[in-house]
């Protein structure tokens, strides 16, 4: 970044300033060194990437410190990209935050490495029961029969829609949307009615595994993967049909912009929904707090369309995990247990940040969003119905990046779908 700025005139001053900055950075970065200050007080470091939820967690940690006067929690918010590179290098150097957030996709890279503390004892000691949390989230953070993550929240996929465009087209959203690979079903019908020229699309079929093609595959009766750490089957007939459908929505039925405008990393799919160019847009419920300030229209929520095999949606829940080499295992354990408690989960849910991973704790979440004029019940219903986890495999962060890159081709109509699917399998099943 500063390659031109520093090299030609590397003066003593810049070097010294740089050194000072670096040292400052090193000492300032949060890791659980000996922060047990005077009076037996302990400060734990809690790392997250969501600056909206940071506000909510302030209340959670106030409640925690009220119950545990000797323990305070300091939050560190890092931007998404930096979060993972920094976390990994910190874990390798043996100095990481005491408690931090983890995603399903990043779990396999850490699970077998001994850097995450098993939480079974903590959970048992606190009197918590794992079967009172959403099974998908519990399962996602299990490794070799050990629970390495405390289920935090549910990311459920639902269909957001632009109420202004829908009512302008004179459509009432049916209770149940349906789709099938041959184009039958009321979903496509509605999407076509909502498509106007080449300025407004009824739907956005774009390369986003969690909210798009993984759901098409599951609701077509296919399986992206047979079991966690199992074998990928993108080239299976049902999966190929589903991925072909994702493409047909663009090139055959013409109800969606194509990949040149939506493919990551440069695509603008979400922004197109915000701008009112796309009427129906599948999203994780976690998008709502971000979407609301961006849009000038009321947002409606429907459940994803049901396919030939019914409706199955992806659940992408987060977990809080504990660094195995934390200097304060007892205190961090207490914090983990508190975060899993009904009190903490409801504090976050009732403030509308998350759907708690704890079962039957979503009422406050629904009430919060009702006040904002959005009925989120379809998210909760979808989570209670048939659900599927995101696939995971050894070395997943590297593989998933490659698979997602390959899936960009689904949205470009250049190469045949079966060939793309075979390549995705090859990447996933490698080694």
């Amino acid at each position, binding site marked *: 970044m500063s390659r031109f700025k520093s090299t030609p005139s590397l003066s003593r001053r810049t070097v010294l300033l740089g050194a000072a900055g670096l040292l400052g950075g090193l000492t300032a970065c949060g890791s659980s060194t000996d922060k047990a200050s005077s009076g037996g007080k302990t400060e734990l470091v809690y790392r997250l990437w969501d600056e909206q939820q940071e506000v909510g967690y302030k209340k959670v940690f106030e409640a925690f410190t009220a119950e545990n006067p000797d323990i305070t929690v300091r939050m560190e918010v890092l931007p998404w990209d930096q979060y993972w590179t920094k976390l990994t290098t910190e874990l390798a150097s043996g100095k990481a935050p005491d408690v931090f957030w983890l995603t399903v996709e990043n779990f396999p890279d850490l699970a077998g490495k001994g850097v995450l503390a098993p939480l079974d004892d903590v959970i048992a000691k606190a009197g918590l029961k794992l079967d009172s949390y959403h099974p998908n989230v519990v399962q996602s953070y299990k490794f070799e029969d050990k629970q390495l993550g405390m289920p935090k929240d549910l990311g459920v996929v639902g269909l957001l829609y632009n109420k202004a465009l829908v009512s302008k087209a004179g459509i009432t959203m049916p209770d149940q949307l349906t789709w099938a690979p041959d184009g039958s079903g009321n979903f496509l019908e509605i999407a076509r009615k909502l498509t106007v020229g080449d300025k407004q699309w009824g739907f956005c079929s774009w390369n986003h595994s969690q909210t798009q093609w993984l759901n098409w595959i599951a609701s077509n009766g296919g399986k992206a993967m047979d079991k966690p750490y199992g074998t990928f089957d993108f080239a299976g007939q049902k999966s190929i049909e589903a991925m072909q459908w994702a493409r047909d929505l663009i090139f055959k039925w013409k109800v969606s912009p194509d990949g040149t*405008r939506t493919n990551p990393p440069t695509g603008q799919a979400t922004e197109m929904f915000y701008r009112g160019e796309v009427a129906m847009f599948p999203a994780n419920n976690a998008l709502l707090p971000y979407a609301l300030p961006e849009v000038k229209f009321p947002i409606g929520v429907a459940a994803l369309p049901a396919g030939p095999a019914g409706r199955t949606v992806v659940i992408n829940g987060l977990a809080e995990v504990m660094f195995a080499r934390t200097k304060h295992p007892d205190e961090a354990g207490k914090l983990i247990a508190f975060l899993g408690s009904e009190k903490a989960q409801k504090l976050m849910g009732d403030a509308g940040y998350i759907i708690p991973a704890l079962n039957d704790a979503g009422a406050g979440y629904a009430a919060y969003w009702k006040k904002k004029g959005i009925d989120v019940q379809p998210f909760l219903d979808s989570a209670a119905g048939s659900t599927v986890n995101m696939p995971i495999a050894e070395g997943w962060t590297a593989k998933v990046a490659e698979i997602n*890159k390959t899936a960009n081709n689904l949205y470009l109509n250049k190469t045949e779908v079966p060939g793309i699917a075979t390549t995705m399998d090859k990447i996933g099943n490698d080694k």
Partner: protein
Amino acid sequence: MLKPAPRRGRQAQRQRQTLAGYAMLAPSLVGVLGFLLAPVLIVIVLSLFDWKLLATPEFIGLANYRELFSDSDVWHSFLVTLYYVLICVPGTTILSLLLSLLVNRKLRGMKYFRALLVIPWMATPVAMGLVWTWIFDPGRGALNQFLAVFGIDGPAWLSSSLLAMPSVAAVHIWQFAGYNMLFFLAGLQNIPAALREASALDGASPVAHFFAITLPLLRPTMLFVLITNVIGSFQAFDTIFVMTEGGPGNSTEVATYLIYDEAFRKYDFGYASTISVLLFVVILVVTISQFVYFERRTTYDFS
């Protein structure tokens, strides 16, 4: 007549001077050793290890290098890098030279123009990359909107494997042309005005003057600009990371991006170090060749 100081005294004095010299150098030296040389050595050592982050490093000698030479991804990334360098270096150099000729005039407000041209270099590359992805957006981007005025249906710049590389390279050129212009400008202002008058008296046209007088006398500047540009283009990462992430496919996967991918996506720090060493050697060889080429053709004396 002054007697020469006794030999031992002179020696002691020289030693003191040497020590004082090093003492004054020390702060810079610490920086250079600690932040430039040490990392290079560490990377060379790491390249001899099989080190997946979070696992124990294991010494494997030259195995990483053997893998390197049969790894088609690596060769592809170096070809892509070469392509990038071949667009960026001539592009930046020629454009910055032209700009410097343009702003090397005494007109009112000229210093504001100069400052304006340097702004792209002062802005954060990541932010610039983001802004350019908006400009390149096929539907609403400023570029295609502009082309639409002339009835041209602009392409999807960053989603086409053919156009993605020239597009990100164009951003690089835009970003560094103004900055390099400053060096040429300094070079131009060092050329004595007498030469201008002499060539005019001899009846040389402005074009002839430029090629026969200005350009040869700019060689020291040219050497500096070319070398820093070649190094910078070989190491380009940030705009590519933001704009294409090496895609579509691997059409913009330059060497630095591959290194990032190996290190921070696959956590294979040993192999990432090996690719870094290769990149280091390539840049070193290219830079030395440039020096050798220019050494025989450069004059620093304008009198």
